[in-house]
């Protein structure tokens, strides 16, 4: 009798132990399967959402021009189909990466898509779409977080090999995975004349070039005989349907300079501010005399100047920010040459992000997010090749509670 009972107890214990073990094992497999299923959903959502943003202009379709907030979010250029994005809609996304800029003259905050000194794109917070608005319009508020990066496919890097007599600039053109060899280059070279009174003047020259098998090109400019002559170089590179853009400039005044700020996109107006309105450097604020122009890129990748009204002026301590109107709704580059008594330089601002191949990062910081699904599309922004990359994650957790 006792042996039978012990037999039962041992059998039952072993049975329960085995059952528990197998339940755990099966549960582990099921958990993994469910988890994978959830991740698959996030990946599908990522693809859908990226297409939704890229293939839809939003509503109103011209929201980048007429008002502060669209009622439907989309970035497609309303005048085109397929994956062509509006350079002005991209301009109106609040930058994730750029540090906020405040103009003390008008007490306004600006979204900052600046790409290094002298290449500014500052759009008032009142005119940009912020992340929370975008998530609400996309229907993902509280369920998914995302980060959208729209970066040029072609990188055109320019560096100074020799500063004068002659000035030699080295150009390198590379794609995402390979240098762009034997690519056609067309450039615009602007030289600033600081001796001109009272406003600086500039001269422009244009030319073609080619890259070698490693994507490099050397551009000599014998007309630059002085290390202190400010200049700017804008280079377009194109090969086999891919178009990229790069720029480089030299200035002699890096503390006192002019800062172009978008004033009102619907009015195409731009504010010209003194750098001290953004961040004073301590030294006395001097008046800056400026001379502005606007350049458009033509279909054959040459640049063409467009005259502007009131293209010259002065900004400084006792002078208000000046307002200028961009004469077109086509993308281009707003170029401002400036000088004070001893120094000067040149500043550029894209009118439409593509005209200076600016990278736009919009959304939330994805550092520390778990299981981020990503997807990529090749897109065109005003003929410039870009890649749009969307990173998406769930805000409702990713673990399965077993």
């Amino acid at each position, binding site marked *: 009798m006792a042996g039978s009972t012990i037999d039962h107890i041992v059998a039952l214990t072993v049975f329960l132990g085995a059952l528990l073990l197998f339940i755990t094992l099966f549960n582990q497999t099921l958990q993994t399967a469910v988890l994978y299923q959830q991740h698959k959903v996030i990946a599908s959502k990522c693809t859908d959402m990226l297409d939704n943003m890229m293939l839809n202009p939003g509503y109103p379709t011209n929201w980048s021009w007429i008002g502060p907030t669209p009622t439907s979010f989309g970035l497609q250029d309303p005048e085109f189909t397929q994956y062509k994005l509006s350079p002005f809609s991209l301009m109106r996304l609040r930058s994730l990466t750029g540090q906020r800029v405040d103009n003390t003259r008008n007490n306004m905050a600006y979204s900052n898509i600046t790409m290094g000194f002298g290449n500014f794109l500052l759009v008032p917070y009142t005119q940009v779409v912020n992340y929370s608005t975008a998530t609400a319009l996309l229907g993902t508020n509280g369920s998914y977080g995302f980060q959208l990066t729209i970066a040029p496919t072609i990188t055109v890097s320019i560096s100074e090999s020799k500063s004068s007599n002659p000035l030699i600039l080295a150009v390198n053109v590379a794609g995402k995975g390979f240098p762009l060899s034997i690519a056609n280059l067309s450039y615009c070279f602007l030289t600033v004349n600081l001796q001109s009174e009272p406003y600086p003047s500039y001269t422009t020259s244009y030319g073609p070039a080619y890259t070698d098998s490693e994507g490099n090109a050397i551009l000599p400019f014998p007309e630059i005989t002085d290390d202190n002559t400010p200049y700017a170089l804008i280079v377009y590179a194109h090969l086999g349907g891919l178009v990229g853009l790069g720029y480089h400039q030299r200035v002699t005044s890096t503390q006192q300079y002019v800062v172009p700020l978008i004033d009102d996109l619907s009015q195409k107006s731009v504010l010209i501010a003194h750098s001290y309105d953004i961040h004073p450097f301590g030294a006395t604020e001097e008046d800056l005399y400026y001379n502005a122009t606007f350049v458009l890129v033509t279909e054959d990748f040459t640049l063409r100047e467009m005259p502007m009204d009131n293209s010259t002026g002065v900004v400084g301590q006792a002078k208000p920010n000046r307002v200028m109107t961009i004469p077109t709704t086509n993308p281009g580059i707003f170029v401002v040459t400036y000088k004070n008594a001893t120094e000067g330089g040149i500043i550029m601002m894209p009118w439409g992000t593509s005209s200076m191949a600016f990278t736009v990062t919009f959304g939330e910081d994805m550092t520390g997010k778990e*299981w981020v699904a990503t997807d990529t599309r090749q*897109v065109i922004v005003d003929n410039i090749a870009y890649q749009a990359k969307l990173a998406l994650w769930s805000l409702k957790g990713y673990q399965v509670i077993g």
Partner: protein
Amino acid sequence: MMRTIEILLVIIILTGAFIISSFFAVLPSPRQVSPTNLQRLALTTLQTLDVDHDLSDTVFKLSNDSEWNDLKVALSASLPPNIVYNLTVYEVQTGNTQLYKIANTISNAESLGVSTSAASYLVASSNVTFNFTPEKIGERGYGGTLYIMNCSDAYGWWITGYAPRNLAEDLYNLLSPYFQATIMVQNTSQLEMILNGAKISSSPYENIANAVVINTCGEAVPIPSGYIATQDDWDAKYCYFVGQKVREYNWTWASIVGYPFYYVSNTDNKDLKTQDNGWGIFGMRKVLDAGQPGINAFLEGLDGWPSYVYDSAGRTAELGTRPLSSGTIESCNYYGIYPSYYQTSSRALSESALKQLYDLNVATYIFDSYNGYVPGAVYKNINSGVFLALGLTRTPDIRLTALALLSYYRPRLYRSTYTTAGTSRLVVLQLGQMGGI
């Protein structure tokens, strides 16, 4: 002891079940769970490379042409480093059992791995010519005559940068294929003739009734000398008279820009050529020199009012930049005329005022109504007469006028049939992902 043996048997069965079920329940690799959409990447890569038709040009080149190297470089440069590709171009054949024949292949890897995706893209040769034959307006019923003002003795206003003659030539090129007869009104004498029902050409297709009349002078309207008089309201009465004729002949009167009937112009008339429009243009006079009586007088005549009534009230609004209507965009694609999608309207007419005062209903919206005002539309009187008004700011885009008339009349286009043999190639881009799992 038996129980323990039984339990051991159960455990063996459970273990077997677990192993067998695990064998069938294969979980996907992480890459399969969250894949990069290679198909979309391939398609968008092809679209990007063809943005300026470079891809279309290259795929028709011989396989030893240097442009294939450019394409290789562009593909490698545009794809991420871990993506390998195989691009195959097929020639599309007809009348053959083999529809697709390989024309060329390029690749940057011997193998694309086990998991690949492909996208296809059909391109047409630049040598392809596409012809169409338009239906002639009036071919199946009434009308069919287009009169374009090309008056040598009248100036234009708000057609800045153009002379009426330039606009008339452009309109002729754009619209003459769609009309049975396109006739240039060379001077105000000829205008007077058609206003009085007389033909001005030898064309057998010229037909005064149901014609379309385009005023290329912008805000000014040419006035024959016979209507220039000394009493105060001769100019407004002339506008009323034109409106009456539009009604009588069931014309379609087209105003291409700005305020319609804002000025009258005749540069040869001895009385008018000494007057200016207030902006230094002689031979032109603002109608009654106040408000907008010209358009109101015209609409009174168009609506069949028994006599002219002075009314200088302005019924326009400034709307700023407005997009084309969806119907117009459809017409752009159908007729292949592509003006800018957005236009600035500073002279948009009140839709309700035109309906209530002059029995004009919108027949075709060129721009959608906004706040009760229409930047551009074709209005039809409930009895007779049609009026196209484009209340846009200068400088005029004459393509909009052409598009508006085509949107209203909707002449059909008979496309020529052509074969795709030798003119089309199918490009297939297959992508594979290297590394990782």
